[in-house]
């Protein structure tokens, strides 16, 4: 069981037991971690690289109830820009389609690459760190669900501050157009709607979004990728030798 020993240390022992992670799920998790560290890689290469048993191509038939999701993973290269995740997110949270308030968003850049932006649910949570409100911070990381929550939304200074938005390494955080307070991904209470919506239509393209039941199985090297860097990498990997993506 070498693979297990080499897996990221941040996998909390307790979460194994409490959510009944069997070895298979665990292995799939570690595949995902590899996948995300190299977002530009195709799925087949990742399988080769990881040397792990191949995950099924098609999304698994709906399992009754898996362990609750504690973070998200994204393979940007497969994204078609269909925005189904965005629609599903705002439908779940607001009851109608409104991308401006969605907790996930996709931007098409230069007309040729699609960049999904997600909350990586990082363990060190720089957004919480940056919150200047005293004595009690306006936001905190919920240990149980691994999402950022408002201590009390009224404590948040909103547009006057937005220090959390500036602190987010992948520049993911956006503010609500009316309240001007940040929009945090709450993983839909452990069952992310974006992942389901994506799986419904990513059969030809390969998986784009994945829910991970582990806490902080994500390394900084890919969390810290800004959208601009992601665009650069995607254009290079998809459209080489045209690394700028301009007209020729």
């Amino acid at each position, binding site marked *: 069981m070498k693979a297990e020993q080499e897996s990221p240390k941040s996998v909390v022992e307790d979460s194994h037991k409490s959510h009944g992670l069997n070895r298979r799920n665990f292995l799939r998790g570690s595949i995902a971690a590899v996948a995300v560290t190299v977002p530009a890689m195709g799925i087949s290469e990742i399988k080769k690289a990881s040397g792990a048993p191949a995950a099924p191509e098609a999304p698994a038939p709906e399992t009754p109830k898996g362990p609750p999701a504690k973070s998200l993973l994204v393979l940007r*290269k497969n994204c078609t*820009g*269909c925005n189904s995740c965005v629609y599903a997110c705002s439908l779940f949270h607001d009851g109608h389609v409104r991308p401006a308030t969605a907790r996930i968003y996709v931007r*098409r850049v230069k*007309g*040729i690459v699609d960049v999904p932006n997600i909350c990586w649910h990082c363990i060190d949570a720089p957004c919480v760190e940056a919150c200047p409100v005293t004595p009690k911070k306006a936001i905190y990381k919920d240990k149980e669900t691994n999402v950022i929550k408002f201590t009390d939304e009224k404590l948040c200074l909103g547009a006057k501050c937005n220090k959390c938005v500036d602190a987010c390494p992948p520049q993911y955080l956006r503010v609500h157009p009316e309240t001007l307070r940040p929009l945090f991904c709450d993983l839909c209470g452990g069952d992310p709607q974006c992942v389901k919506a994506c799986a419904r239509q990513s059969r030809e393209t390969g998986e784009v979004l994945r829910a991970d039941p582990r806490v902080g199985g994500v390394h900084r090297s890919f969390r810290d990728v800004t959208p601009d860097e992601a665009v650069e990498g995607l254009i290079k990997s*998809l459209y080489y030798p045209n690394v700028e993506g301009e*007209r*020729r």
Partner: protein
Amino acid sequence: MANHKGGHFGKILDIDLTSGNISTKEYDAELARKFLGGTGLATYYLYKEVPKGTDPMSPENLLILSSGPLCGTECPGGRLSVNFKSPVSGGLGNSYVGGGFTSDLKWAGWDMVILRGKAPKLSYIYIKDDQVEILDATAMAGKDTYETEEMIKEEIANPDAKCLVIGPAGENLVPVAAIMSERFKAAARLGGGAVMGSKNIKGIAVHGTGAVPIAQPEAFHKAAELAINMSANIDRAPGFRQFGTALSLDQNGWYDTQLATRNYQTAYYPDVAGLGGEEATRNFWQKHAACPGCQIHCMKFGVLRGTEKHDGLIAEGPEYESGVMQGSNLGMAVLEESIPLIELCDALGLDNIGAGNVVSFTMELMERGILKPEDIDGIDARFGNFDAAYQLFEAIAYKKGKAGALLGQGTYAMAKQIGGDAPKYACVSRKQGIAAWDPRSARAMMPTYALGPRGGVHTDGGNPKGIADRVVGSSCCLCYFVPGTWADRANSNIIDMLNPLCGWNINDAEFALIGKRIITLQRAYSHREAGDNRASDTTFDRAFTPLPEGPKAGSKWTKEEFKKLQDEYYAYFGWDNNGVPTEKCLKEYGLDFCMDSLKE
């Protein structure tokens, strides 16, 4: 007036470009239920507000960007309908473009944008929710569509804005100019780009942060969920999601024999193997791409690698129409040659189909000795000559030299100018160059080419009922690929979503009536402006000659068959024998305001 329960805001953004005056126009729920939105409602305003006999390129013409009730919701496949009086046909001008513009327009709180007048200098418009600005675009003059879009997004500092732009072709008022969006998407047919150019508008950007109101959310979400699941179901769109419309390239050129080839001389083209979906999968495509909210992702982006010319060229395609009009119809046989032409049309803002049609027509005239190279600046335009085709597309867009002047007027006018035998080889229906399906074997294309509300386009439906149903979908601004995945639930899915969305109780009968009403309104408009009737509902001569080769060799239309098609079509909508709406049917459809169209 705002008695809308959902789906519509009842608000139209009315921009007078001459004076710079921006106002809001309201309409009531009754009108929305009669014409839905999209092309239906836009044709209503076109009919009412553009005086009879207006010159399409004059400031009096309107450019109406119209969204539909289902756009901006989770219903898959929203498109924008662009409406104007066409400089090509002289009648109804109407084309569609996918992408995010239409839903962002809704999220900004508008159902429709009407552009009237003419801006004093080259300008672009920025719509951010209810903030609307007309901004200076002189720095973008002559820029291609991609550069223009990037410049606009940078100037307004909003990478999330969706843009409609024109390229050099639109600025030069070429009738085969398209309005482009998101680099590769086009509202191409009937000369919308030229109308936008005549208004001195280089681009329109929109970004909305709101949401569409829903009358009965629970019922609507349930119906939409069903529609989405049907679209996402792979069995309903086999191969289509994998290959996009390029799937038809391989099928049509080989055993279906429907692929327009060498200016529609034949429809059998085994060389299509070098242009089709399979070839593109192996050697060109890099990525699937979808319009927002759609499960089909029919677009494919790719890059040319290791080619002598245009190495590193990024393009969308080949899809069926562009793969034919810039491929087999020009005698190209490899992606290396068709892709740069497709990309060139997109960048210059040319209608792939219209411009491709005029170039293939030129090539046939050249081969038949009717045209000489010296007539078109010494360009040796023969089938399969890539460089000549490239030069011709550039000449059209920039109206350059003799070639630009001759070809830049479109197939119909060009054939008329040359005279003699030339019109025999011009493949036009109702004055517009036809699309990439040969109607001799693709029988269902004849009604849409010759009789549909626009003429010459391939997307209006294959029989009278199909045409009426299609226009309802188009007025809700649905991409017609999406109802295609709903099969026999195509109409009922639309009804099931519209009713709870708008708080209506439309049934099948009313659905059919709306279709007939809108088609009749469009006919009345085209009849008033361009005199459309039985005599003008024509198609090209070649359709009546047999297909020369392939599995369907010998297939052709006869005059009797064509007449029967016309009879059925006119009877279905209750028009008279001459193809003109009658007073009775106008009354029945509630189109009393169209009575004046019947007067000569």
